[in-house]
């Protein structure tokens, strides 16, 4: 891994002044985006989200944006920042240069200022049945033990399970930009996340949704989604592997079965050597 030396795109000294240019939108008075600019003092480690907070707290309380975790795990703060969809909390201003331009996520409706409507993303996510589907209803309803899965089997899909549903990939996708129907990289990659899970047997059921021109075949491999993804999900890879699964079946032949139970009273050989817990003192 290359050492990160900082300031790859432009150099902004700490204590310097940042120009924050935001495309604003107030549904009660605007018909189009309205640019507005503020100056913000740069603090050590400042993210774009920190800069937006600085404006909201000190200069203009009416500025609207959405965030929750402030650490790149909730997927709430997706915005179009200096020409790319990015998470505001995951982007330091010193990567960007002295002028930071922020607009609402492309390919989404803006509700107010930088708040995008993600309802369609969630609906598409739900449409691909993002959960384990199996035929053994009895075991699913009242489980007896866990289903077996090796670390190698986990590695086949774990990358896709990191998805935050931040919708940055949909903001980057050229097919999404012209098609309302296309399921989009987020949902399709999630369909593959479950198809490739050895516990799952739901490819046939999901094919009803994804085997369509607005499903996997809406993807033309431009790869922009994988560039935009902040979590390394690589949705473009997931979509192509899903296409392959539709032709040749999932990577596993049959869904994993429950692991067999250890005999009653079984102890692993090492168990005898482990120190015993001290006797309870109360």
């Amino acid at each position: 891994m290359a050492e990160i030396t900082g300031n790859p795109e432009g150099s902004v000294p700490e204590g310097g002044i940042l120009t924050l240019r935001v495309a604003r939108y107030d549904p009660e008075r605007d018909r189009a985006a309205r640019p507005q600019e503020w100056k913000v003092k740069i603090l050590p480690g400042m993210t774009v989200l920190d800069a937006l907070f600085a404006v909201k707290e000190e200069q203009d309380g009416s500025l609207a944006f959405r965030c929750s975790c402030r650490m790149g795990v909730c997927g709430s703060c997706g915005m179009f920042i200096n020409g790319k969809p990015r998470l505001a909390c995951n982007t330091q201003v010193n990567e960007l240069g002295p002028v930071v331009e922020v607009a609402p996520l492309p390919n989404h409706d803006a509700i107010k200022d930088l708040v995008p409507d993600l309802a369609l993303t969630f609906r598409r996510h739900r449409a691909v049945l993002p959960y384990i589907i199996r035929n053994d209803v009895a075991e699913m309803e009242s489980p007896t033990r866990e289903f077996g899965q090796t670390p190698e089997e986990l590695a086949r899909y774990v990358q896709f399970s990191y998805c935050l549903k931040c919708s940055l990939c949909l903001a980057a996708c050229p097919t999404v930009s012209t098609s309302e129907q296309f399921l989009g990289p987020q949902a399709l990659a999630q369909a593959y996340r479950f198809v490739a899970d050895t516990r799952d047997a739901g490819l046939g059921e999901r094919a009803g949704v994804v085997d369509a021109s607005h499903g996997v075949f809406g993807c033309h491999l431009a790869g922009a989604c994988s560039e935009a993804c902040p979590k390394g999900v690589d949705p473009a890879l997931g979509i192509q592997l899903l296409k392959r699964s539709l032709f040749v079946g999932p990577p596993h032949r049959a869904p994993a079965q429950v692991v067999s139970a250890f005999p009653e009273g079984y102890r692993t050989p090492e168990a005898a050597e482990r120190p015993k817990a001290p006797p309870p003192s109360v």
Partner: protein
Amino acid sequence: MVAEAQTPVRTQVPSRLSMRLGLRGWVYAGRYPAERYLYILHRLCGLGLILYLPLHVWVTGRRLQGPEAWQQTMAILSRPVFVAGEILVLAAFVFHAINGFRLLFGHLGCALGRPEYPVYPYPVALHRQRRLTTALMVLAGAFLAAGVWGLLTK
């Protein structure tokens, strides 16, 4: 009985601002890397080839009107502007065909590598394919050069 709550009713749903990029989302690759540009070029070349097809059918159809008509058409086609056009069609075809094979493999999940743990810097399948992509583009360049050589020296 509890009185009905007097909640103000919103008569009008506030409007939204659509940020959908439309065709601009196809033709503008901005700061995305090579594959995003190849996508545009593949599309443009495909459309260009389709537009060329009727012209091609008409030209070859002239042969049915006898050797004289054919000679005449060929004479027109040997003008530099048409030769330049032919080179463009050849370039579009060579690029579209060779890049098309890359895409076909990709769509079948081949030559993309396997999923891995997302450890920073995050793995991207299309980056794993870069050497193949570069090799194919060099190959396309070689085919084009050979074709142009053939056209200009015939």
